């Protein structure tokens, strides 16, 4: 929801980044305010996933220029785990399997790391168990998932639901969902989208990275951005997504190219 007087949560300006000396991001600019939902779309290889990993602080990507402020602090100065504890959450496109580590333990350690950052007391195993069971409802997950190893043997849909469960527990200020809709059937998509909608509120913000308009039928964005070659070349509202769905990306790319020539 767009409100003029909302706080700016994330401000990205002139961000450039490379992986193994190949430049990927070439001047990203983006401002996200509290309460807003942004969708970032764009063809394969346009740098959408890289952008999400750079924000989260993945060590494979090095930032070569520009600034990123998160709630007024320099995000790029923080280590990946510090960013997470400050409230930046990335729902992974391919959630990792961690054999031998129970989902419940993983969730509890993550949750308590966030609590500690907020100056709150850690929850013990019993209280946490109670809390996590409440949160299971958000993504309609069976409690048996808690005792299984993190994502091990989970179906694609179960993995994505597990990501949203983590989001529900950690209550991030900024959640970046990297192609959370990929590989989901329509029922799973509805469950995931419904979970995200329950979690969105006026104090947090969500960035959806997606190829398809389909997800945006269920999670309605305030802004739709189109990325190409490492920068945002067009910004619109939800109608832009429909237009892209109907006409493809070419016309936007062409428009952008003409603008540059002028």
């Amino acid at each position, binding site marked *: 929801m767009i409100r003029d007087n909302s706080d700016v949560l994330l401000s990205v300006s002139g961000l450039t980044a490379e992986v193994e000396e190949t430049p990927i991001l070439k001047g990203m600019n983006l401002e996200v305010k509290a309460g807003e939902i942004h969708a970032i779309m764009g063809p394969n290889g346009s740098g959408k996933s890289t952008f999400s990993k750079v924000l*989260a*602080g*993945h*060590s*494979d990507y090095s930032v070569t220029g520009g600034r990123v402020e998160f709630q007024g602090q320099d995000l790029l100065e923080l*280590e*990946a*785990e510090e960013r*997470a*504890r400050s409230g930046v*959450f*990335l729902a*992974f496109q391919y*959630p*990792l399997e*961690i*054999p*031998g*580590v*129970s989902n419940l*333990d*993983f969730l509890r*350690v*993550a949750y308590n*790391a*966030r609590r500690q*950052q907020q100056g709150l007391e850690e929850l013990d195993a019993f209280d946490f168990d109670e809390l996590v069971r409440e949160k299971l409802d958000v993504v309609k997950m069976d409690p048996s998932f808690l005792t299984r*190893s993190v994502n091990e043997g989970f179906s694609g849909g179960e993995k994505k639901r597990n990501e949203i469960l*983590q989001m529900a527990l*950690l209550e991030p200020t900024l959640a970046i969902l990297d192609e959370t809709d990929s590989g989901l059937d329509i029922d799973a998509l509805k469950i995931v989208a419904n979970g995200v909608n329950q979690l969105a509120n006026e104090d947090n913000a969500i960035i959806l990275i997606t190829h398809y308009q389909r997800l945006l039928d269920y999670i309605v964005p305030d802004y739709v951005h189109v990325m190409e070659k490492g920068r945002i070349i067009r910004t619109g509202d939800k109608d832009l997504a429909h237009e892209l769905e109907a006409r493809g990306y070419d016309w936007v790319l062409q428009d952008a190219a003409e603008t540059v020539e002028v």
Partner: protein
Amino acid sequence: MTATVKSLVNQPYKYGFVTDIESESLPPGLSEEVVRLISAKKDEPEFMLNFRLKAYRQWRKMQEPTWPHVSYPPIDYEKIVYYSAPKKKDKLESLDEVDPVLLETFEKLGIPLSEQKRLSNVAVDAVFDSVSVATTFKKQLAEEGVVFCSISEAVQDHPELVEKYLGSVVPTGDNYFAALNSAVFSDGSFVYIPKGVKCPMDLSTYFRINNGDSGQFERTLIIAEEASSVTYLEGCTAPMFDTNQLHAAVVELVALDNAEIKYSTVQNWYAGDESGKGGIYNFVTKRGLCQGVNSKISWTQVETGSAITWKYPSCVLVGDNSVGEFYSVALTNNCQQADTGTKMIHVGKNTRSTIISKGISAGRSQNSYRGLVKMSPKAKGARNYSQCDSMLIGDCAEANTFPYIQVQNNAAKVEHEASTSKIGEDQLFYFLQRGISAEDAVSMIISGFCKDVFSQLPMEFAVEADRLLALKLEGSVG
């Protein structure tokens, strides 16, 4: 490998101090005369001297094994001191007479021996430079008929048991290091559980190497009579020296009808520095004989120290329906080398064995599992299940599996499973992105990986083992 993983595995060794204590040593080098001197110093009966001399003569004719997947410069056996003992009074009546410096040393290692502070549920035999300095709870155990003392005392007080069982599981000429040990062993622990007795508390030996020049040769002998049972724990540490110390111990276990022995080790000898300088050469022979029907011997080991580990705790399953188990976690880091595993020799009918081995290699280390499962012609209906998993941390570590399977009858069943995995950067990033530090991430992954083995350890040891692995891996990730 990024800087995070690396920094996680390298934690300073905290037991590296040297205790300043007057000791009595023989000059370096080994000869028949030295063997006789050791035996004389210990005032041993003739059968012991003969045992030692036989072993010595066999050792002289033997060659150091070259088949393990480890490499080290040749050991000069003439430069090793074969007998070194802290000076003490002739016979200790109580712990009050133990040199306070020694008590302090063990206290520093977390093994308080004094009456007030000692562990309430575990009897401890404290061995310092191959000599037993104190054994706690001896009296209480004696009430049940359990003998728990140093092997030197056993030679004096229970010569008939020692003569009957010493070398019965690991013969003097079994292998190069066992022969050497048999010739020169100075001390170790002795346990005898009488018929029908369930040992009322866990027994434990804590081995401490202190002397930089002396070799360490302990001998442990555990006998469980019919329908008895005992849980035995072994811990080890050593100071940090630039040179390598040879540790060649022998452990023999005998389980008679329906008896059960559970033997757990947390080995934390000094492993050498980051560049591979110093550390213990741990060349150890451990073997259990399930002599009786329905007997059971279970080895659990957590190997984290030593520059080189060469060790195969084994079970010889002679009694029908007897059971052998081997649960192992071997962790190597920096330049450590480990060639470890087990042998399960099935002789009796319907004998069963389980092997669960977890190898973790970090740094530039080499970690090999070597195991033999043998089904002899009479072992009808015998079964084995082996699972060998390796985990690599970083890009420079090595993991190998060398399984040997010999089946000599067609009514036996052998299963072997193996896997290799790696702690990947992306896995770590997943933890980091959830606010979990790289240290905690590695320690969670490793405990998960080792869960099946840790669950076999007694409670105190399991916690200790978990903590130890996390410490050892500190600095190796990232």
